[in-house]
């Protein structure tokens, strides 16, 4: 099982929604 690590998630908004069982991605400058 592969794993997506935090190094590749930088400057991305990662949204977790347990109720709707979905994960979302959007580009964002985090700083």
């Amino acid at each position, binding site marked *: 099982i592969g794993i*997506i*690590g935090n190094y590749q998630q930088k400057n991305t908004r990662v949204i977790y929604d347990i109720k709707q069982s979905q994960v979302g991605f959007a580009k964002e400058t*985090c700083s």
Partner: protein
Amino acid sequence: RLQLKTLQRTHQSNSPSCYSQKSKSENGATILEMQHKDYCSGSVTNMSRNHQKQVITDDDIRVRSIQDSIKNIISGKIETSSQNNIPISSGVKLHSLNYIVTVTLGGRNTTVIVDTGSDLTWIQCQPCRLCYNQPEPLFNPSVSPTYRKVICNSSVCQTLQSATGNSGSCGNDLQDCSYVVNYGDGSYTRGELGQDHLVLGSTSVENFVFGCGRNNKGLFGLASGLMGLGRSDLSLISQTFETFGGVFSYCLPSAEAKSSGSLVLGGDSNTTIFKNSTPISYTRMLANPQLVTFYFLNLTGVTIGGVAIQDSAFGKTGMIIDSGTVITRLPPTIYKAVKAEFLKQFSGYPFKQGVSILDTCFDLSAYEEVSIPTVKMQFEGGAEMEVDVTGVLFIVKSDASQVCLALASLQYDDE
């Protein structure tokens, strides 16, 4: 509100004779005459160029104001009580490649690693049998008036099995709920479960269950503990489900950035728009009955510099998304294909020997500028995550004499 403002402006005009006098009632409705706000001064028909310019400027300010209000409401910038924003920053200053947030537990500020790959939130506690160094004082439950032990025959203690893989046990005094968490990298924490008052940004959580770690060792840097954001009943997300509805997000800044990103708890994932972000693309979480606490996604493709990688392994196995793992691990066949395409596009740069799990390295010390191929991950349903340029290469040596592709391979396909 727009109508009310028009009336107020009319009242502010100079001459009382200009007040609208004409009104009538028709079919139960009252009809008021409405005039332009500059009607009384006569300037509506005889505007100077400067006045016209001022009117247009005023109008522009008004439109911007309305647009900003709408944007703020939609983006959640005006926070509702069910949404909470906490600064998140690189753990480099605490000797960790993970990300950290500061929360208040039992009245004390506590800096913990943000981990979606585990469930139990824990901090190092006094008295400690084996604790690593941390700059913050150790949590002392005996001086927190709101601290309570979790007893070992409680239902909370029984949730440890699904949350950590190890069942809770009765401690020395036959009352404490003892826990053990072993992490994939060999790190561990052992201690007792307790409950205390937790403050997350502007939101308080009463009786938050966490681990009081008495025996902790591993790759935690100098953080005071760990925040478990997994899916089990014991995770912070489950414990705050009534407040935040099981929704959270984060934006991780690059390690070099001095300013912080954000951990947002709550909100509506379907309608929330984040400031300065592109539209959100969603993919479904996969159900894995054997590993219910992880967030599984279906990776359907990878592109390197716009070239799609062909591999039959795509879409067959789930990928865990984890904030507590640093480097992405790909199944071997996918990694091989990704590596080959990356090398093809990143050719011309001198090779360097690999380091640890990173086997695709270069010496870039002679270059002021390099062209890095884009890396995109695609997921079921069309969701896409474009890896930020700061996440493609890992700078091992600061003089750029050893820079590696920041991806690694699993040992075998079904690992």
